[in-house]
């Protein structure tokens, strides 16, 4: 094995069982067959079993950051557990060189009745730090967690954010050769999250890193390789941009119509939309016709059209008042034809909402939440939220 390859996974498979009773019984049998010294290479599925991971192979060198993508249940956590030696593969081989640090669960071993100070020592020991090492880093840990005021308070009276801060502060004082990070940064406030990213960046300098996240911006920012899992199989291994686009294809929920916030109120009677296209290319324009029937004349309305990406983040928005001084609606049926674009959106499916506000911008007689879905064929990365241009013809 070449010297700087720290993680090597060869044709690894792992099975799980859907049925608890059977699963426990298989557990007994597996232990039994290992006790009598039989090598447990099992390729066939027993009743109710499925492959949580199948035929997984990849390598990781020092200095590389691998993004691990996949929907819930795709096998990400199982893979991390295999790499960490918590569970055994049923086929294949995992080779790990050097010390392993896993930020899989924060604050492992915390006891709620004990104080933050005591728990730092417990958690540190569980993660493999000696008392001397913790003594040396104690101040640094508390500084990082910013918890000096609460350090002698039982952890059970910490807020969940404080809990995570303390756990993270301890965990980041490891200096492993192989670092695994499992979506733990989803908690905590923005300021602490940035602090975490800086810290992970420092740890990653000299380690082989495996990073699991559902946030594509984080993946794009941190990783230089990418592995996409789907139902226990590798569907992509390599380039980050392609990996993200593969993952987005895999995880788009398609045409699920979300009417949870939809409303049409007085003085508007009915609203209808017509879109010129369902799919566009990067930089194309799109046309929209809105038919609004009102009970009375409405002067100087505002129209807002936000585009939501698959993570429900606003990727772009058009607001009529930027481009038109006034749009007036007459009593009865009105037709508005709007040309939006060019749309510089990254690849993916977008949900589009249409919001009509009164002249003051206080009342919203129409709020059509995510009524239309638009597919964009474009680059997989880039594209921050931006102001979409558009005119009412």
């Amino acid at each position, binding site marked *: 094995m070449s010297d700087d390859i720290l993680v090597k996974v060869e044709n690894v498979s792992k099975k799980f069982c859907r049925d608890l009773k059977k699963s426990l019984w298989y557990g*007994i049998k597996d232990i039994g067959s290992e006790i009598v010294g039989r*090598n447990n290479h099992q390729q066939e599925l027993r009743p109710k079993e499925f492959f949580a991971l199948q035929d997984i192979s990849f390598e990781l060198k020092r200095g590389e950051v691998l993004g691990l993508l996949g929907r819930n249940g795709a096998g990400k956590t199982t893979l991390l557990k295999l790499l960490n030696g918590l*569970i055994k*593969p049923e086929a294949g081989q995992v080779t790990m060189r050097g010390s392993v640090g896993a930020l899989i669960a924060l604050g*492992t071993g915390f006891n709620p009745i004990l104080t933050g100070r005591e728990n730092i020592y417990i958690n540190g020991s569980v993660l493999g730090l000696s008392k001397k090492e913790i003594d040396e880093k104690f101040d640094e840990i508390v500084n990082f967690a910013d918890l000096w005021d609460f350090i002698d308070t039982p952890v059970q009276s910490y807020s969940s954010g404080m809990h995570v801060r303390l756990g993270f502060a301890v965990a980041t004082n490891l200096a492993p050769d192989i670092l695994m990070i499992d979506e733990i940064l989803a908690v905590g406030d923005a300021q602490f999250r940035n602090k975490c990213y800086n810290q992970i960046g420092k740890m990653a300098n000299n380690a082989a890193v495996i990073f699991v996240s559902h946030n594509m911006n984080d993946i794009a920012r941190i990783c230089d390789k990418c592995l996409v899992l789907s139902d226990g199989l590798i569907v992509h291994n390599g380039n980050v941009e392609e990996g993200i686009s593969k993952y987005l294809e895999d995880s788009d929920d398609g045409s699920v119509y979300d009417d949870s916030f939809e409303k049409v109120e007085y003085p508007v009677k009915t609203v209808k939309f017509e879109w010129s296209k369902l799919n566009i290319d990067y930089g194309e324009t799109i046309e929209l016709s809105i038919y609004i029937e009102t009970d009375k004349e409405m002067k100087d309305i505002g129209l807002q059209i936000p585009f939501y990406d698959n993570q429900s983040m606003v990727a772009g928005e058009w607001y009529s008042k930027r481009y038109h001084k006034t749009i007036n609606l007459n009593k009865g049926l009105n037709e508005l034809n709007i040309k939006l674009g060019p749309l510089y959106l990254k690849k993916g499916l977008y949900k589009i909402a249409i919001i009509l506000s009164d002249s003051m911008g206080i009342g919203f007689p129409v709020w059509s939440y995510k009524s239309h879905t638009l597919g964009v064929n474009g680059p997989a990365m880039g594209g921050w939220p931006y102001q979409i241009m558009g005119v009412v013809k």
Partner: protein
Amino acid sequence: MNQVKSSLPTNLPEVIYTPDSHLRKPGKLIRDMFSDLAKSKELAWRLFMRNISAMYRQTMLGYFWAFLPPIATTLVWVFLNSQKIVSMGDTRIPYPVYVMIGTLLWQVFLDALNSPLRLVTSSKAMLAKVNFPREALIIAGIYEVFFNLLIRAVLFIIILICFKVAVPLTFLFAPIGILSLIMLGLMFGILLTPLGILYQDFGKGIMIITSLWFFLTPIVYPPPTSFPANMITKLNPVSPLLVTTRDWLTIGSVEHLSGFIIVTVITFILTLMGWIFYRISMPHLIARLGA
């Protein structure tokens, strides 16, 4: 982010995970077991301190809870015996002392028996997420057994003084007896832990069996000598250990030494096998329970 350290350490430890049975490489297995045992010392101490301080922090009576079970048991049996509700025969030393020491020793055995399953169950979440030396949980349990033993030793000394019992010189052997009792309990505990983690039947079963076991051990009565009651001392592995230890502590003469030696040797071997069983089954248990 991607600067590679210029001088890579070439002697990185390498760990390989395969589906192969660990028993196929016994040499490596034994080496790993003892190196993990050494590595788990500090963590075990930490976990022990955590459990002890957490156990008594949220109580009003504190360490008194460690004294309570033997005192309560002794009072009940002393009452029953003194009222002639049950008659226990000749115990050669004052009956309260006899029962108290018997109960203390039984409690040591019981503590040791329950500790592996209890600690592993309460650490399931930790086991499923962090790869720490698994031996640490067992060691932490042993520390707890010793801690409780020390607390109860105070009770023992008070009893001896109150009843003016002269301790024979053989009490110097008692630590060996106590260690054997702990090891016997640990052996049962560690062999049952993997099964008890998978099936809760075992945990429930242990509770019932140990409460019956108490009566099948010469704790509150002297060892029977006539058939069939004397089978209690012949078939019950706790009997020779407990009776011998108690005799060492109180009367000095020992009747069951051969039984003591046989049980201790078998226990030692089975405990080592239990340790291997525990290690080997751990990844399977985690795979089955997730968490």
